[in-house]
């Protein structure tokens, strides 16, 4: 991973939609008036949501002006956090967890499948133009490793077969359901569902 680069092709203007402006007001209420720049992170996230999952420079400027911050400070925040995308991502944005537990359970195979099915490189939009993928650090679902996140949903307990199915479904624009792919309910044990108080098998 290297420092995030801003996209070459930037839209000229960015403005929050009316609906999001209401949300912005709501967010600003959470912070003391003199510290309104504390709202920079939720606002950046909102901008990312509004703009097809990535933040253009115009949005950073807009937010900087809105919160009376220097441009560079917003830019610093946006480049610091990995979950802000500074260049366009696919409509189906696949984030593959490759931290230790997932890797031990075969995340490298998932990465390989992504390379084969979506695009040879990270952060590259697929040929059909609706998918992109990237490796990320722990997404906090180690109990159902290996896993991937597609947009807002977790796809867990994966193996090569299920991953391939999921990826194909994405490319065909008919995404499969999120959740465990070994039939688990949430994170409960696979067999012998035991009620509270009793010993596990």
């Amino acid at each position, binding site marked *: 991973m290297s*420092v995030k680069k801003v996209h070459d092709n930037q839209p000229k203007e960015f403005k929050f939609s009316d609906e999001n402006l209401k949300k912005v007001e709501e967010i600003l209420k959470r912070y003391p008036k003199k510290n309104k720049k504390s709202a920079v992170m939720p606002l950046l996230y909102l901008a990312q949501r509004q703009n097809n999952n990535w933040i253009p420079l115009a949005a950073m400027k807009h937010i900087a002006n809105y919160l009376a911050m*220097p441009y560079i*400070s917003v*830019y610093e925040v946006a480049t610091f956090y990995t979950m802000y995308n500074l260049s366009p991502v696919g409509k189906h944005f696949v984030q593959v967890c490759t931290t230790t537990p997932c890797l031990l359970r075969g995340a490298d195979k998932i990465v390989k499948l992504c390379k084969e099915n979506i695009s040879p490189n990270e952060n590259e939009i697929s040929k059909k133009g609706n998918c992109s993928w990237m490796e990320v650090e722990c997404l906090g679902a180690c109990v159902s490793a290996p896993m991937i996140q597609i947009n807002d949903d977790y796809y867990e307990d994966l193996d090569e077969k299920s991953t391939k199915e999921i990826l194909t479904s994405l490319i065909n624009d008919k995404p499969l359901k999120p959740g465990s792919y070994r039939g688990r309910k949430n994170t409960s044990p696979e067999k012998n569902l035991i009620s509270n108080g009793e010993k596990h098998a």
Partner: protein
Amino acid sequence: MPKITINGKEIEFEKGMTVLQACELADVEIPRFCYHEKLSIAGNCRMCLVEMEKSPKPIASCAMPAAEGMNIKTNTTLVEKARKGVMEFLLANHPLDCPVCDQGGECDLQDQSLYYGVDKSRFVENKRYVKEKYMGPLIKTQMTRCIHCTRCVRFATEVAGVPEIGAIGRGENMEITTYLEKSMESELSANVIDLCPVGALTSKPYAFEARPWELKKTESVDVMDAVGSNIRVDTYNWEVKRILPRLNNEINEEWISDKTRYSCDGLLKQRLDVPYIKKNNKLQKSTWDEAINLLVDKIHSVQPNEIAGHIGDMINMENALSFKKFFETLKSENLEFREKNFYINSDEKMNYIFNSSIAGIEDADLILLVGTNPRHEASILNARIRKTFVQKKVPIFSIGNPGELNYKYEIIGDSTEDIKKIVNKENDFSQKLLSAKKPIIIIGESALELKSGRYIFEEFKKFLIKNNLINENWNGINILIQNASTVGLLDLKILQDKKEQSSSFFDNLKNRKFKLLYLLGSDNLEFQKNDEFIVYQGSHGDRGAEIADLILPSATYTEQNGLYENLEGRIQECKKASYPIGEALEDWKIFNQIIKKIGFKDYKVNFDELRKEVLETAPNFSGLNELPKKSVIKTNNIETSFFSEKIFVRELDYYYTNSISRSSKTMSECRQIRQKIKKDGTNN
């Protein structure tokens, strides 16, 4: 006072100090990179780790507040090991390119790795590489060398007031850059070069010019503006290689403006090395004998009152005094040094200096700017105003619109009517002014140039005296002078006591009364040349030399000793760092020769005599580098007449204010970029 034990020695410290500062009191050196006295504390380099009793881990002394009864040790194996560890981490990604690095020889990292580091590296992995960043024509970047101390980021945000530098990315990928790699829009930008403890930010014009140990260092003062920043002039043979700031908390702290620092390449270009005489409308090389004979002939051919002299913006007091003596022998009184006819009352010293003093700005509780743009007229003073604004949230007001000043201010009016209302207590602001304990009023030359310049100054002064806001402890009336020579020349009484005719020089010039005009280093006087015979005595082939009929070459401020008085009335010595080029001479030597030729065979004044006389003449003089003694406060009723006028703040071509900066290539580049930004309207 609370006490702290450092290496077994108990010392007293002031409340609010950090452990690092307390260690300095105890004469214990703590290595550091990110900590800097004039900047906020970051605590991110970890080089200042020390051992504290009862603490399981070493502590970062720069960020730890000192407390009563602390027991600090800095000479234990733990500390030594900690420093070695930090040093090893810092060097993990730092390239070993000292032989080609401009910081070599004055590099904090180099020095500290020698004293506190390990002798070899255990790091075998690849070192990271960071792309160079564009930061304008003054700052050369080599970001692979950066150790992320963030001094430059803090300087830009806190002192310069242009939050344009930042650290993007995280962890190993962190990079220091300006927003989208634009040049930094500040008059103090190059100070980040001094702040950078490694060779990441170095000086672009000075790149690969010299090594620090090859240079002769002369401690001097700056003459680019009237602040009198303390500088160090580094020379290699004749050439002035670079100019660096010298610490003086009373004036410039640790900063100097870009013009001070980078005009020095103008000292090498466009220089006048031999006398020139205009023959057949063309300037031709000549000799001193020929030139002086011609001048003496001209002097004899005109009446004394047809001779006029104008003294330029960078003339030291000794030379000005010898010029005055020269005009006394000619029996001419037509001496002037102002470039525009602005009102100045030279009766007493407090009428033409910055009475509150630059350091005194920090005590102020209200600041009013009248027709002045301190950012361009005196950048260092502006930094002090900003410091006061940031630290104490002092309210700042302005009459007239000065433009962007790097701090928030409120424009309360743009005409002399508003001033009338204030001094007659007819508006809300006068109440604010009266309720302030230490208000500062800064009047700029743009305001004094107006017809009501006299009204503005005298009425403000009367108002402040009447309301006891000028007293023994505080004097809030300040004139912001723009030229380095002005205050000194006022002290030497170059403007003679002809109060009512003080504009006569400009009128006579306009009405073509003068037959011979002697420009002593004067390039900024605007007038229409007619059939006057113009003598230009100066160092650069600039505006003055362009219109001259006779050119006498003289030395610049780095090539001679001399006294300058800054806008506070502080007399400081500018020292000779180099020597005049070609046949050029110091001004006073030239006058000695001319006066002798005129017929005063025995006339001879040497430099020491001139200096002695200068120091005797200067009113309220208390000592070199000291503020002048306070004036006795008198209420003399000077009549004023009111004119209703708009107050404009004259825009200053910051990078092009004098003959040296106009000859400088670096300054031209800065100016072009500034103009481009203005034209494109890319504001940040």
